[in-house]
């Protein structure tokens, strides 16, 4: 099963591994900003799959969706951080448990 010649499945295995590392990060860590970072990790894993399929199927749609995933991920990181800073100012700590008493 294990060929050393790099093919499409190698990229998919790597992106799956990165995706799982991202999920673990969200589940395990308590610091909000590290959770945001592991979400960025998951989005990057998705980007690798997009580009790998776009390269092996010779069609540009994969790379365009990578463009949009990057834009949305950057926007999400910006807002996530703004909320984390607002919580830090109020509770002097950015542990995930402070987020339970957000209104609404």
């Amino acid at each position, binding site marked *: 099963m294990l060929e050393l010649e790099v093919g499409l499945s190698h990229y998919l295995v790597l992106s799956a591994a990165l995706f799982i590392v991202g999920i673990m990060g969200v589940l395990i860590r308590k610091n909000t900003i590290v959770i945001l970072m592991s979400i960025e990790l998951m989005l990057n894993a998705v980007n690798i799959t997009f580009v790998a399929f776009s390269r092996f199927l010779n069609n540009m749609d994969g790379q365009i969706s990578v*463009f949009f995933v*990057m*834009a949305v991920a*950057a*926007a999400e*990181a*910006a807002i996530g*951080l*703004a909320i984390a*800073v607002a919580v830090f*100012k109020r509770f002097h700590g950015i542990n995930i448990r402070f987020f339970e008493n957000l209104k609404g």
Partner: protein
Amino acid sequence: MLDQLVPVMILFVVTVVFAGGLIFLTAIVGQKAKKSEVKLMPYECGLPGQESGSTKIPVKFYLTAISFILFDLEVVFLYPWTLVFAENVQALGGPLLISMGFFMGILIYGLIYEWRVGGLEWD
């Protein structure tokens, strides 16, 4: 692809080895002075530093970082646009201008809003 990626890696290793090696060399060759407590204190230009625990650093910087990300995305979307615009101006000039005009109009409005609301002020 390879004759671009391999040189970048070689050069990265060469720079790290060169700069790191020289810094390591000075660690070996440099003077060995006795470790005096005062010398190792962080440089507070004379006044003994009051370790006041967590420092009060104005949080203004993260708003600059956020607006930088958003306008950087705008610049990044402009790069492919210039390629398409420069090449087929006759065929697609009009619709391209309108679509990018709308996109940049929104972000220029964002900049004006941030300016008016005082997001760009520095205390």
